[in-house]
C-alpha cells in the first residue's frame, strides 16, 4: 500500500457503486435503443458519472434539483429507482413521469427532481425560482442546477445568474463542461472559454473542478453548498469532464478525433477511481465482482420491470394538460 486512503472504505465503495450503476444502466440503455425499445433521443452521461454521484452525496432530501436532457445519471444518483427511470425511457405508465416524458423528461416530485429540461439553459431560471420560493417561504433548502457548458451561450444563463446573485438566492450552479455543445467545441462557440469568469462577472463565486475525480467533485460541491446554505447567495462550479459516447444516438461524431476520446477515456471517473481504491487497499477483485453483480441485477430488474410495464391508455391522452377539477 503506497498511500493512506483519504476516504472511508464504505463511502468509497458507495461512490464506485453509484458510478457503476449509472455506467451499466446507460450501457444497457444504448443496447435497448438499438433494439428500438427506447426511442426518441437518448443522451448518455457515460464519462460524466462522477459529477452527479459527487453532488448527490452533498444534497439533502429537502433540496431541489434541476437537470437537463442528459439526466439519467442524476436521477439514479438522487434515488429515483432504476425501475422508474427505465420504465420512463420505455414510455410505460410505470415510469417516473408516467411515460410521457421519456429519456429527456425525468421528474419526481417526491425526490424534488424537477426535470429533465430539454431547452438548453431553460432550467436555470426555474432553479432561481425554486430558490426564491424557498427564500420567501423561509425554508432552508438549496437548489442544485445542472447544465452543460453549451448553456452558457444562452441568454437564460446570464439572466438567471444575474438574478440569483442580485437577490442572493440559494442556488448551486453546476456547469458540466464536457467541451462540446452537441458537436460544437467550446472554443468555436465562446469568445471566453474560462466559464468561471462569466460567473465572476455577476459576482458569483466560482471554481474549476476536476469533474473526473469523484472525491474532488464531492469536496468542491460540499464546500460550495455549505456557503450557499449559509445564505451567501449562489455559487458556480465549472466541472471539467468529457462525454465518452456520442451526443445522442444519431451522432456520427465527425467533430472530434478517436484519439481525443481515447485520451479522455483514460481519465474516466470509474477508470481512475477503481485503481486508486485498489492502491489504497479498499478494493479487490472479489469486491468489484460483487458490486458489478449487484449493479447487473439491478439493471436486469429495471429492464424486466419496464418490459412488463403498461401503456397509458390513449383515452388518458388529455389528462393533466390542466389540473383536473375536483368533482
Amino acid at each position, binding site marked *: 500500500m503506497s498511500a493512506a486512503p483519504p476516504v472511508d472504505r464504505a463511502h468509497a465503495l458507495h461512490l464506485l457503486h453509484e458510478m457503476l450503476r449509472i455506467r451499466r444502466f446507460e450501457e444497457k440503455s444504448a443496447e435497448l435503443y438499438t433494439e428500438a425499445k427506447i426511442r426518441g433521443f437518448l443522451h448518455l452521461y457515460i464519462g460524466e458519472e462522477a459529477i452527479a454521484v459527487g453532488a448527490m452525496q452533498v444534497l439533502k432530501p429537502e433540496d431541489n434539483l434541476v437537470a437537463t436532457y442528459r439526466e439519467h445519471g442524476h436521477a439514479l444518483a438522487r434515488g429515483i429507482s432504476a425501475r422508474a427511470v427505465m420504465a420512463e425511457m420505455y414510455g410505460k405508465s410505470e415510469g417516473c413521469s408516467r411515460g410521457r416524458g421519456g429519456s429527456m423528461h425525468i421528474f419526481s416530485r417526491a425526490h424534488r427532481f424537477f426535470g429533465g429540461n430539454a431547452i438548453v439553459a*431553460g432550467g436555470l431560471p426555474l432553479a432561481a425560482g425554486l430558490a426564491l420560493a424557498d427564500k420567501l417561504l423561509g425554508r432552508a433548502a438549496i437548489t442544485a442546477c445542472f447544465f452543460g457548458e453549451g448553456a452558457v451561450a444562452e441568454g437564460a444563463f446570464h439572466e438567471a445568474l444575474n438574478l440569483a446573485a442580485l437577490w442572493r438566492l440559494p442556488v448551486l450552479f453546476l456547469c458540466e463542461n464536457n467541451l462540446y455543445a452537441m458537436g460544437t467545441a467550446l472554443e468555436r462557440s465562446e469568445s471566453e472559454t474560462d466559464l468561471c469568469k462569466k460567473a465572476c462577472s455577476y459576482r458569483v463565486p466560482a471554481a474549476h473542478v476536476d469533474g473526473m475525480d469523484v472525491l474532488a467533485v464531492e469536496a468542491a460541491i460540499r464546500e460550495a453548498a455549505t456557503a450557499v446554505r449559509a445564505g451567501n447567495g449562489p455559487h458556480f462550479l465549472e466541472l471539467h469532464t468529457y462525454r465518452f459516447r456520442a451526443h445522442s444516438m444519431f451522432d456520427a461524431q465527425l467533430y472530434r478525433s478517436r484519439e481525443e476520446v481515447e485520451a479522455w477515456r483514460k481519465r474516466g471517473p470509474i477508470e481512475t477511481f477503481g485503481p486508486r481504491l485498489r492502491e489504497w487497499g479498499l478494493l479487490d477483485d472479489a469486491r468489484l465482482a460483487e458490486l458489478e453483480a449487484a449493479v447487473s441485477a439491478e439493471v436486469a430488474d429495471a429492464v424486466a420491470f419496464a418490459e412488463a410495464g403498461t401503456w397509458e391508455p390513449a383515452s388518458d391522452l388529455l389528462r393533466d394538460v390542466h389540473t383536473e377539477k375536483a368533482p
Partner: protein
Amino acid sequence: MSGEVITYREAVRAALADALRRDPRVFLMGEDVARYGGTYGVTKGLREEFGEERIRDTPLAEGGFVGTGIGAAIGGARPIVEIMSVNFSMLALDQIVNSAATLRHMSGGQISVPLVVRMGSGAGAQLAAQHSHSLEVWYAHVPGIKVLAPATIADARGMLWTALEDPDPVIIFEHVGLYNLKGELPADAGAVEIDRAAVRRAGQDVTLVTYGGSLPKVLAAAEALAAAGISAEVIDLRTLRPLDDATIFASVRKTHRAVLVDEGWRTCGLAAELSARLMETCLYELEAPVARVCTKEVPIPYPHHLEQAALPQVEDIVAAARRTRGE
C-alpha cells in the same frame, strides 16, 4: 348594491393588494413594479404597503424573471409576474410555452405551475410597432395555459384572485386603453368565475363577439345599431382559452348572424378560430357568412391617423353587422 366609481387601473391595483393581503405566498415581480409604480401606474403604492421582498423590481430580463416565476410557483409560492407589454413577452415565450405550459402533462401530472402572468397589450396610445400589438392568440394557441382578458372594472378586480387559485398557469391581458376606463365597482366586489363568457348586452338580430379593449367599441356599435333598429347581442369572451363555446353558440342560434371583433390580426387569429367553430357547429343556423373585424395586417404605426386606420373602429363593426343583414 352601489359602490364607488374607480378606474380599471385602480381595480387591478385593488385586486393585487387584496391578493397580497390574503395570501402570504403571493408576491409580485416585474420591471419597474416597485419604486417606479409600474409603467402604467398600476402597482403604485404596493411597495410601500408590502415591502420589497414581495414587490420586486426585476432586471430587464423577461425570459429570466418569467422562468424564475415558474420555478417559484413550482416551489410553492404564488408569483404574479408583470410583463410591461405583450411585445416584450416574446422574450419570455420560451419559458411560458416550453416550461409553464408543458410541465404538468410532461411530468405525468406531478408538477403544477400556479403562476399568474399579467401583461399590457393593445394599441391606441401611439406607441408604434413594438409596444402596441394584440398577440393574445399566440398564448391562446397553447394547451396547458389559461388566457384571460378582463374588459370591465368588475373583471379587472375579480379575475386575479380566481387566477391565483388556479393550480395551472394563467395569463391575464390588460388592454392598455382600458386603464383609464371608469366604472362603478360594487361594494361587495370580489373574485369572479372565469369559466364563462358574458352577455354584455342582450339582443335578437346579430351577435357581436369580442373581448378586452374592443368591448367599449363593440358596445358603442351596438348602441348605434339600436338607433338604426337593429338589436345586437354583445358577448365578451372574458376567457380566450378555454373558449366558452356554449355561450357563443346559444347566442348565434338565436340571432343567426355573427360578427367577430378582434384587435389581433385577421390571419390565423382568434376570430378565425371562432369562425371555424361556428362553421363546425352552427353552419345551418347561420343566415349570413360570419364576419370578421380585425386589425389591418400591418405593424401598428405611430401617427394617430394611421394607428386608428389600422384598428377596428365602431363604424367598421356597424358596417359588418349591417352586411350580415344584407344591407
